[in-house]
C-alpha cells in the first residue's frame, strides 16, 4: 500500500480480516448476504469453515454472534452500517453491548458513499447511535491502512467494538506500521489559526485542506480521531484553549457524531467557536457522492472555505 494510492477502504478491511484470521483461529465472520459488497467474502473464500452466511436476517446474525462469543469465539458481524445499527440496533444493544459480548461489528458503507443507493442505504446516524450505547467502542478509520489497524486493535480489545468502513476509494495517508491508539487523536498537521478535527474518510480531505490553507496564509492544526468513543478529550481541550476555533468534519450527520462529541467536550471543559461540517438534518439522495459532498461543504474546497472564514472571523 503506497502513500497517496487510492484504495477502496472496504477491500482493505476485507483483506485485514483474512490476515487476522490466519493469526486468530477463534475468529469467525458472519455476513447477511452482502459479503461481496462488504468484502467479507474474502474471509469466506480463505476460511469457508469459519464464515457464516445468515441470509438477509441482521437481527438473527447479531444473536448468533453473541451466542458464539460465549464459547470463546471472536465473531465479526458485517453488513451495511445503516441496517446494522438500526435494524439490528436493539439486538446489538441488548445481546452484545449489555452483555459485553466479545463481538466485533463492522458497519460497512458508512455515511454517504453507497454506490448511488440513496436515502435508505446511507448511514448518516450510525456513529450517533453507536456512540450513545453504553460499553461500545466506536472507530471511524481514515484510510485503507487505518481500517486494517482498527480491525487489528478491535481484536485486541476484550468486548464490543464498532468499526465503520466506507465503500469508496480513499487515498492512503498512513504508513504500513501505523497503529491506532484508543482515545488518542493523531496530529497530522500543526497550526495556530484554526483546528480541523476530522474522522473517517474526511481526514485525507482535511489534511489536503490544511495544505491549501497554508498557501493562503492560514495555519491549521489537523487532528484525526480514529476512535470517536472514547474520544481524546485532552487533544480537543488543547485545541480549544490554544487556538479557540474548531471545525469538525465528518461523513455523518452533524448531530451526535464527531461534531456532537467535540461540542460536548468543549461545552463542559473549554468553550470555543465551533463549526460542524457534516450532513445537516436530512436524508441523503441517490446520485454522485461528490455532488453531495460538495453540496454540504465536505470537499476540500468546502473545508478550506469554512476553516478560512472561521480563522479570519470571530
Amino acid at each position, binding site marked *: 500500500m503506497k502513500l497517496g494510492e487510492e484504495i477502496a477502504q472496504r477491500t482493505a478491511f476485507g483483506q485485514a480480516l483474512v490476515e487476522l484470521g490466519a493469526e486468530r483461529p477463534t475468529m469467525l465472520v458472519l455476513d447477511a448476504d452482502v459479503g461481496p459488497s462488504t468484502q467479507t467474502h474474502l474471509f469466506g473464500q480463505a476460511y469457508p469453515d469459519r464464515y457464516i452466511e445468515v441470509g438477509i*436476517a441482521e*437481527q438473527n446474525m447479531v*444473536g448468533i454472534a453473541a*451466542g458464539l462469543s*460465549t*464459547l470463546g469465539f471472536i465473531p465479526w458481524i458485517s453488513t451495511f452500517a445503516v441496517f446494522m445499527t438500526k435494524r439490528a440496533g436493539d439486538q446489538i444493544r*441488548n*445481546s452484545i453491548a449489555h*452483555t459485553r459480548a466479545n463481538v466485533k461489528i463492522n458497519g460497512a458503507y458508512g455515511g454517504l458513499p453507497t454506490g448511488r443507493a440513496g436515502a435508505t442505504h446511507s448511514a448518516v446516524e450510525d456513529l450517533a447511535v453507536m456512540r450513545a450505547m453504553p460499553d461500545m467502542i466506536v472507530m471511524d478509520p481514515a484510510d485503507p491502512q487505518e481500517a486494517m489497524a482498527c480491525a487489528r486493535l478491535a481484536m485486541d480489545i476484550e468486548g464490543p467494538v464498532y468499526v465503520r468502513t466506507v465503500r469508496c476509494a480513499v487515498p492512503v495517508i498512513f504508513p504500513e506500521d501505523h497503529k491506532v491508539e484508543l482515545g488518542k487523536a493523531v496530529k497530522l498537521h500543526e497550526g495556530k489559526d484554526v483546528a480541523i478535527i476530522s474522522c473517517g474518510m474526511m481526514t485525507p480531505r482535511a489534511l489536503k485542506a490544511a495544505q491549501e490553507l497554508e498557501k493562503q496564509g492560514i495555519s491549521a492544526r489537523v487532528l484525526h480521531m480514529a476512535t470517536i468513543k472514547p474520544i481524546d478529550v485532552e487533544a480537543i481541550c488543547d485545541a480549544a484553549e490554544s487556538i479557540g476555533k474548531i471545525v469538525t468534519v465528518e461523513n455523518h450527520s452533524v448531530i451526535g457524531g464527531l461534531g456532537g462529541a467535540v461540542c460536548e467536550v468543549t461545552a463542559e471543559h473549554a468553550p470555543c467557536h465551533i463549526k460542524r461540517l457534516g450532513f445537516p438534518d436530512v436524508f441523503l439522495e441517490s446520485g454522485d457522492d461528490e455532488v453531495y459532498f460538495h453540496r454540504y461543504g465536505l470537499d476540500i474546497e468546502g473545508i478550506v472555505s469554512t476553516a478560512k472564514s472561521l480563522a479570519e472571523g470571530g
Partner: protein
Amino acid sequence: MNDKNLDELTSLARETRRLIIETGHTCGAGHTGGSLSEVEILIALYFSFMNIDPQHPDWEDRDRFVLSKGHASLGYYTVLAQRGYFPVAQLKTFDHEDSALQAHPDMHKCRGVDFSTGSLGQGLSIGVGIALGAQKKNKAFRTVVLLGDGECQEGQVWEAAMFAGSKHVQRLIAVVDYNKVQLSHRVEENLSLEPFAIKWESFGWSVLSVDGHNIAELLSALSRAGSMSEQGPVVIIANTVKGKGVSFMEGKFEWHGKAPNDQEYAAALRELDTGYSNDSSKSR
C-alpha cells in the same frame, strides 16, 4: 431422572409456586402470570433433564439454558435458588437496587444465568449461536431456549427458526411456554400464532406437544427431544395456563406484570396449600 422421582419434582414445583407468590408479594414486583406458567418446565429442566453442576456454573460442558422470555425471571430465579445456585433467602432482594436478581436476568450479576435477556425475541438466536459453537468445538452439550408465546410474534424468532431448521443445527431444543395470554390480551386476540406446530414444522423443526404442567409428560418429551436433536432442532410446545395454580390469576392478562397485594397474597397461598394446582386438565 437424576435422583428425584416424580413426587419429589411435583412437590418442588409446589414450593416454586409458593416462593414466586411470596417473593412477588415481598418485593412488590415480578411477572407473576408467566412465572407461574413456566414452573413445571423449569423444574423438569433443572432437576432432571439438564446436565449441570450448580457448584460450577461455568463448567464448559454443561447444558446451556436461555430464558428468552426474560420478564419471567421470578420463576427462573426461584428454580435457580432451589437448585442451589444461590440461597433461597436471596430471592427477597429480587428487583431491588443493586441486586444480583435484576428485573430481567443478567448473566454478569446472577450466578447460573447463561445469557442476559429481556428484550423479547432474541433468545432463540442466542441459542442457535451457542449450539453452532458447540458443534464447531465438538462439544456434546445441549442448548435449551424457553420462549414465551407472545414473543413468537417477533420476526427475529422466525429468522432464528429458519436458520436452525435450514442448517439442521444440532442439540438445540426450544420450549414454548404456550400460556395463550400476553401483556394486553389473549394471544389469539392480539395476533394468533396458529397453526403454531405447522409453522415450526415448515421451518424444519421437529415438534412435540405436551401438557406443560405435567412433569411426567415434560420429562418424556425432553428425553425424546434430546435424542431427536442429534438430527436437527426440536421444539416442545408446552401448553400451559398463565397464572397456573391460583384461580383468580389463571388466564388473566391482568396478572402478566403484577405482584399480589396483601389480600391476594393470602388468598393465593391458601389455594396453593390446598393443592388447587394439581388439576392440570385446564392447560389443554
